[in-house]
């Protein structure tokens, strides 16, 4: 009796999850499946996720006709730049606030954390003016610089670093270790897993940046993938939905891969850091 009830509730759970999954994954599946369809099938009024005739024509079109490789390179450069700057600065901040004990710790913590509340659009105009005064408009550096400061990344890393027992630092201090050594071997060493997780999340976010690059990148040569897709959608899409979907699928592929490889880390890092009070 009890077994039967359990079986029933379990299968109900699976059914609900699967239905929700189909709804949630539908746009993604649609994107991939339309990139594999022929133009004729693409515009037939049906909803079939499985193309009748799979074609890679759209992908060939994109790789031949557009600057796909250039866009990809631009995306990689900006993503990498943002990742290095953002994670490194957050690590240094988290280290200073945990390793040293001064009366400024609390104030500096809030100095950083408060900026989490401010929407990006608030700082957008002055940032634009700043970047253009530096003469950086239309370069990848312009995209990277403002993202050096990201309080969410900082907060996540800070939470992780805080869970390291203070006695480790003390031992290092008594042994006369230099703070660089402690930074590298104690803090980064102990938080390796969670740093990996936060790095992946940072990389995914940086890859997907849309609005700021749209403002500062103007020439076709410097576009990142997301921006190129936007231009594509605005000016050329007409009957090129197939190639568009192919580009969109290609642009999403790296993040999906990165996520699938590191998903354990990500979930584990959330569990271990916990959002603890």
């Amino acid at each position, binding site marked *: 009796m009890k077994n039967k009830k359990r079986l029933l509730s*379990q299968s109900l759970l699976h059914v*609900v*999850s699967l239905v*929700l*999954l189909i709804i*949630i*994954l539908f*746009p993604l599946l*649609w*994107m991939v499946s339309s990139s594999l369809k022929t133009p004729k099938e693409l*515009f037939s*009024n*049906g*909803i079939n996720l499985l193309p009748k005739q799979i074609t890679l024509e759209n992908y060939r079109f994109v790789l031949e006709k557009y600057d796909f490789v250039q866009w990809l390179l631009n995306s990689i450069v900006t993503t990498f730049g943002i990742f290095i*700057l953002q994670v*490194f*600065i957050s690590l240094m*901040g988290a280290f*200073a606030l945990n390793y*040293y*004990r001064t009366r400024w710790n609390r104030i500096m913590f809030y100095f*950083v954390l*408060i*900026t989490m*509340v*401010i*929407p*990006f*659009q*608030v*700082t*957008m*105009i*002055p*940032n634009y003016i*700043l970047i253009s005064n530096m003469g950086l408009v239309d370069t990848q550096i312009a995209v990277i610089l403002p993202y050096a*400061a990201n309080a969410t990344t*900082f907060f996540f890393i800070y939470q992780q670093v805080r869970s390291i027992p*203070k006695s480790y630092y*003390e031992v290092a201090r008594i042994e006369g270790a230099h*703070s660089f050594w402690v930074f590298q071997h104690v803090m980064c060493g102990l938080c390796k897993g969670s740093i990996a997780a936060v790095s992946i999340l940072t990389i995914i976010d940086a890859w*997907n940046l849309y*609005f700021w690059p749209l403002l500062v990148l103007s020439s076709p040569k410097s576009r990142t993938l*997301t921006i190129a*897709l936007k231009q594509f*959608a605005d000016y050329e899409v007409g009957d090129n939905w197939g190639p*568009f979907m192919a580009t*969109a699928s290609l*642009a*999403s592929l790296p*993040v999906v891969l*990165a996520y*699938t490889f590191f*998903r354990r880390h*990500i979930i584990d890092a*959330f*569990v271990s850091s*916990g*959002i603890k*009070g």
Partner: protein
Amino acid sequence: MSKNENYTPARRRPFSREDACFWLWLIPVIAAYGLFKYWPMIYSFILSFANWNFISDFTWVGFGNYTNMFSKTMFIKGMVNTLKYIVYLFPFFVILPLLLSVMLLNVRNKFAQELYKTLFFIPNILALSIVCMVWLWIFSSSYGLLNNSLTKLGIASVNWLTNSKTAFYCIVAVCGWKYLGMNMILFIAGLLGISQDCVEAAYIDGASGWQCFWSIKMPLLAPTTVYVVITSVIFAAERAFTAISVLTSGGPSYTTTNLSYVIYEFAFKYYNIGTASAISTFTSVFFLLLTVIMMRTMGGYGYHEE
């Protein structure tokens, strides 16, 4: 700090070596946040007292921008919609993820559970701008999937994104869809972090599943819940931005615009930097106040550094 703190208190010199090292390590942080967060906030506060369009000369107008701002329909609509987004996105950002996380943790088959977890998170990692364009196709009035299937079912098609009654809900649906998984993972992490001893003790004492969830797990989950609620409220505005700009451009008659988008429109469409900056300042103060209020009311569980 808890029991781990047994440092000798810092010497009472005004500026010790400890202080010096502390500030040295913080130089990059101060540089980055000062230059790209604080300076822009100060600068836009200054700009809010001027009339400027990127090229013309500055003319100082005092509080003119602030008084003018309230007579612009766009701004008023943006403000109201920001609140509306917060309220309408709340179920997607907090309630649904909580339900989903509880549901997934009850799936016994470990492989299936892992798979669901992974797949529910997928929308989160895709670029919102890209998936919005896919949604654009789904919602499109002439060749959209939604209308196609509705016509097949014999229901009249709707201009989802250009109808002032439906456009707002489309944006909410897309944003909710996109960010559901993130908070779900946070809740799962929180629930897994709860010590099993408490839960078992409750069961032994004869608590039902529901009682156990409501009186044991929910209170223990409070830090996660507070974090999720606060970030959901303060990010609602920012998260909606991309969807608004790709799907509706704030239209039909400002029904989908929000404060972030209003700032963008004033700055880069009308080149009215003064008004845009005034709205920026208003938005900063608005969100800061909102956060302070939330922290205070949920204080018992909230963030204490200690």
